[in-house]
């Protein structure tokens, strides 16, 4: 039983570390701010989630303490991470930061410009 639990903890924490590493590599390798936000808002969420779950299970099964703060932290992370990603993407588009050269299609073009024209 303890072996199974230990294997589960190891797998969870290793997956979390792996995805955090992927986030870091993605931030370096991807071409523009929008694609970097992809890496930062998805992989890192799953990475931190896996690490927190592994920690919760470790303290619950091995040490006998069930820490509800971990569960709350996971829930808050899920609420805040997509909002952060959305706001970074939107703010950089409004500020006029250019998309990568590889971008094939831009339906948002003109939507924000029209709005500023009306305000003038």
């Amino acid at each position, binding site marked *: 039983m303890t072996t199974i639990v230990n294997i589960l903890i190891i797998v969870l924490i290793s997956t979390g570390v792996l995805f955090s590493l992927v986030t870091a590599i993605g931030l370096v390798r991807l071409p523009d701010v929008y694609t970097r936000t992809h890496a930062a*808002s998805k992989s890192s969420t799953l990475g931190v989630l896996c690490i927190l779950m592994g920690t919760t299970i470790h303290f619950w099964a091995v040490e006998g303490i069930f820490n509800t703060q971990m569960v709350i932290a996971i829930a808050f992370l899920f609420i805040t991470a997509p909002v952060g990603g959305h706001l970074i993407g939107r703010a950089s588009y409004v500020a006029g930061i250019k998309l990568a050269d590889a971008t094939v299609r831009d339906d948002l073009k003109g939507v924000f410009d029209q709005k500023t024209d009306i305000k003038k």
Partner: protein
Amino acid sequence: MALQILLNFFLALVWMFMTVSFTPAGFAIGFLVGLGIIIMMRRFFSYRLYTSRIWAVCALLLLFLKELALSSIQVLRIVIKPKMDIKPAIFELETDLKYDWEITLLSALITLTPGTLVVGISDDQKKLYIHALDFKDIDEAVDSIKNTFERAILEVSRP
């Protein structure tokens, strides 16, 4: 839905008073009995049973966890590929959802799933502008969101 849950709690309290057992077990039994009564009396409610909505929420949660794992694996494959040959794009998605909380939930789910990130919502809240990490076909991308998340959210909010 909230009314039915409240009624179920009230029935459980009545059960506890009737059986003089003020314990969590007594509450649980009363809750189950109350649920049975509500199921029997369901034709007097104007909305469907609240248990089916709770089931829809659980289905949405499972779908979301699956898509989150898939999206992280996709990002991993793109990031560690030696040659960076992605085609990012911003495309438009018309949504049928009406309420603010539905649109917020949909955009949060889109942001956390395979290769998509919401970068803007039109002023009339009819269109979402989505940045795709690796863009192949607009119909395919729109269909996959429509058929999974929008349908699951509609299933939750259906009266």
